[in-house]
């Protein structure tokens, strides 16, 4: 049957949540535990790390040895379904824009593979306009969010250390793991040039915190998602316990089409396409909570047009889709000759760096207004596709066991070279704050729809000198650190003005934010300070969309905190019969 019917679900929920990542998972968790009835829509299939993770698979258990595919841009073992491109779901660019849009389609969203870098925003991060005159201040400050950061630290678990840094606030931390050997080299080298290196802050359990999750067993594979729930994924840590309350109907393979509205202008529910039977469904509830990712939530609002909301629901300001921004990023790698021919041992550690560098300088003395932090990598990684690629660039450049060899080659001598260099590489990545600007936006492409007939997003984003100068500073810093530790740059050293100093395309760092920002002025911001639509009081957005600015921190911990805060507000407002 090709007949299309709209099937209306008779059950009326307290809340319809679109998206099951950090924001949606947290909302489902809080509302379900408060006894509210929730319908959780997810565009991808079900996913439980315990059943579906590739954790502990060996490289030869992937026919492509862990190489990437369009389904897994971060490699065949990565824990995220889809990425930069999804079959049948295009997006377009305007005026030479080059936004790269990552989309996860699975329960838990991209939290199944993320870096678990769990940084609180600091007091300055909510008030950047007051400091440098750019962008806007948030309608809330650190003190409004701190209680939620505290609760999340305890509920989810994060390791780190209290360092007393004003804009990198202390938290409630589990003990961090000891630095690996290359991290000791980094710490010493950076210390010599006055760049701080402190224990990283990752949501990985170095100690058990509840009966449902085990402590980390140090396989370094958080990116694959964790079968024993030793790290934070929304799928295992929020959605699963939310569903266990009996208050959540999880609907998978449900691609949201639009937010439905009633005669009074309030949201009544959500219509979606079921990807399995390709039929149209409608679900109804007292509130609608968007958490589909900053860009998907904006797309959904812009596509929810009616005579009452000609610009899309909750968009009387015209701001939905604007102020789209991502973290900045630039990277460099090198090799440490002192580490050639290292003694072998298991140094996997946790999935990610054991130490990092928070922003340490004063922007008033620099030619760019916002900071960045530095992430570090290196050591004995699992050999995967690409292992020691192009050794001809390396094995003629250094003496191997005291002998100068000719570059390239073959045979037993070549096998010796591969062993000799293993574990001597080091890499660093700057992740910084760009400026949220009105002219950096996504909008509905007037001509293009996806395979479900849903109009797609068109992007218009561009870096300015602020971000480019920041990338230049990153590169200079990386060179100094590498030089200070006696390392030789092997990649990322040739960037310059010709390529924006290696600054990644916007979107590439996968921290999309700002499209449905909060603010006190309804003319300049779609949401109020409780992540609630100014126009439609029972419509909320609890993902990265609500961010006014990005900070030089990864945004997940703040998405979780704001979603928890908004969800508690919803519970309270429902009790008071305000929504």
């Amino acid at each position: 049957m090709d007949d299309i019917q709209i099937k209306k679900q008779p059950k009326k929920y307290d809340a319809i949540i679109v998206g099951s990542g950090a924001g949606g998972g947290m909302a489902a968790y809080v509302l379900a535990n408060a006894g509210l009835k929730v319908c959780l829509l997810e565009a991808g299939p079900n996913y439980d790390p315990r059943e579906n993770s590739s954790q502990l698979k060996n490289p030869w258990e992937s026919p492509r040895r862990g190489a990437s595919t369009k389904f897994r841009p971060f490699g065949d073992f990565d824990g995220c379904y889809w990425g930069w491109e999804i079959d049948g779901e295009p997006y377009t660019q305007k005026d030479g824009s080059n936004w790269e849009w990552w989309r996860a389609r699975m329960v838990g969203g991209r939290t199944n593979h993320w870096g678990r870098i769990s940084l609180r925003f600091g007091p300055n991060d909510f008030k950047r306009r007051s400091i440098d005159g750019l962008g806007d201040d948030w309608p809330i400050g650190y003190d409004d969010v701190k209680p939620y950061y505290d609760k999340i630290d305890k509920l989810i678990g994060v390791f780190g250390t209290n360092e007393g840094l004003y804009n990198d606030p202390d938290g409630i931390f589990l003990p961090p793991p000891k630095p690996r050997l290359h991290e000791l080299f980094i710490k010493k080298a950076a210390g010599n040039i006055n760049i701080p290196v402190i224990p990283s802050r990752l949501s990985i359990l170095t100690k058990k915190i509840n009966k449902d999750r085990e402590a980390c067993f140090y396989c370094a594979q958080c990116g694959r998602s964790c079968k024993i729930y030793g790290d934070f994924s929304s799928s295992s840590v929020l959605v699963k316990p939310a569903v266990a309350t009996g208050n959540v109907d999880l609907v998978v393979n449900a691609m949201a089409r639009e937010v439905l509205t009633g005669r009074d202008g309030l949201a009544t529910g959500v219509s979606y396409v079921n990807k399995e039977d390709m039929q149209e469904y409608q679900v109804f509830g007292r509130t609608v909570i968007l958490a589909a990712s900053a860009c998907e939530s904006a797309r959904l609002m812009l596509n929810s047009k009616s005579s009452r909301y000609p610009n899309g629901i909750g968009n009387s300001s015209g701001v939905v889709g604007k102020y789209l921004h991502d973290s900045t990023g630039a990277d460099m790698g090198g090799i440490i000759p002192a580490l050639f021919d290292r003694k072998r041992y298991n140094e996997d550690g946790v999935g990610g760096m054991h130490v990092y560098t928070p922003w340490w300088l004063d922007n008033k003395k620099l030619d760019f207004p916002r900071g960045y932090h530095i992430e570090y990598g290196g050591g004995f990684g699992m050999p995967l596709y690409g292992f020691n690629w192009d050794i001809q660039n390396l094995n003629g450049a250094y003496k191997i066991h005291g002998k100068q060899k000719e570059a390239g080659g073959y045979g037993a001598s070549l096998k010796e070279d591969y062993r000799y260099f293993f574990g001597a590489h080091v890499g660093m990545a700057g992740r910084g704050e760009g400026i949220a600007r009105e002219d950096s936006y996504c909008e509905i492409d007037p001509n293009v729809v996806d395979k479900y007939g849903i109009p797609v997003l068109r992007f218009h984003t561009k870096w300015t000198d602020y971000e480019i100068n920041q990338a230049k500073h990153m590169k200079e810093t990386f060179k100094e650190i590498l030089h200070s530790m006696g390392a030789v740059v092997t990649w990322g050293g040739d960037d310059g003005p010709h390529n924006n100093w290696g600054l990644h395309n916007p979107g590439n760092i996968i921290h999309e934010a700002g499209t449905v920002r909060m603010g006190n002025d309804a003319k300049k911001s779609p949401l109020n300070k409780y992540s609630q639509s100014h126009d439609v009081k029972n419509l909320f957005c609890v993902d990265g969309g609500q961010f006014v600015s990005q900070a030089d921190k990864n945004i997940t911990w703040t998405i979780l905190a704001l979603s928890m805060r908004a969800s508690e507000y919803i519970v309270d407002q429902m009790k008071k019969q305000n929504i």
Partner: protein
Amino acid sequence: MDRRDSLKALIVGGISTSVLLDACKQPAKEGAENTENKDAKGPDESDRMAEEKLVNKQLREAPKFFTANEMATITILGDIIIPKDAVSGSASDAKVPDFIEFIVKDMPEHQVPMRGGLRWLDMQCLKRYDKAFKDCNHTQQMEMVDEIAWPKKAKPEMHQGVAFFNLMRNLTATGFYTSEIGVKDVGYKGNAPNHWNGVPDDVLKQYNMAYTEKELKECISFDTKA
């Protein structure tokens, strides 16, 4: 150590719980099924989404890309690049030719450079020795390989061959060091549950490094005597 053994080690390591035991049941069951009916069951795809399973099946069932002659040449070249030595086996011991056959189907961008490079090599050998590479004697094969295996000293007219040999070296090494034999050879010790207790003392000493008192106080540590 396979996944089942890793999970066993976890329990031996003293952090076993009901969750872990649950996690262990599944691989054990899969293992039993695999021994009974290995070919029919196919690979463990519990971590694949539907679209991937389909593509992987199509790849497994796709006709061979390389001809018998090409495969024979790939096998000889692979074993020249990674021969058996005192530490480990050869590229063909690690089934690298099969990996290369798969990967050019998965990554079609390698198809023309590989096919064309192999043909270039055969044409060189036909001109020099009146035989395709695989039919040349060992001395002739090594003479030919030495013309293209050393990028910095290769003659300009050999540069297409150098590019091919670089690719062949890359694919052979990547296939070999991601195999069970190769991972053991290069000495990767991870992918096994453990307690990370910091850099071993003798290694710290070797590099004149030490943990600070702050680190020793703040970081998680495990009693190694237990």
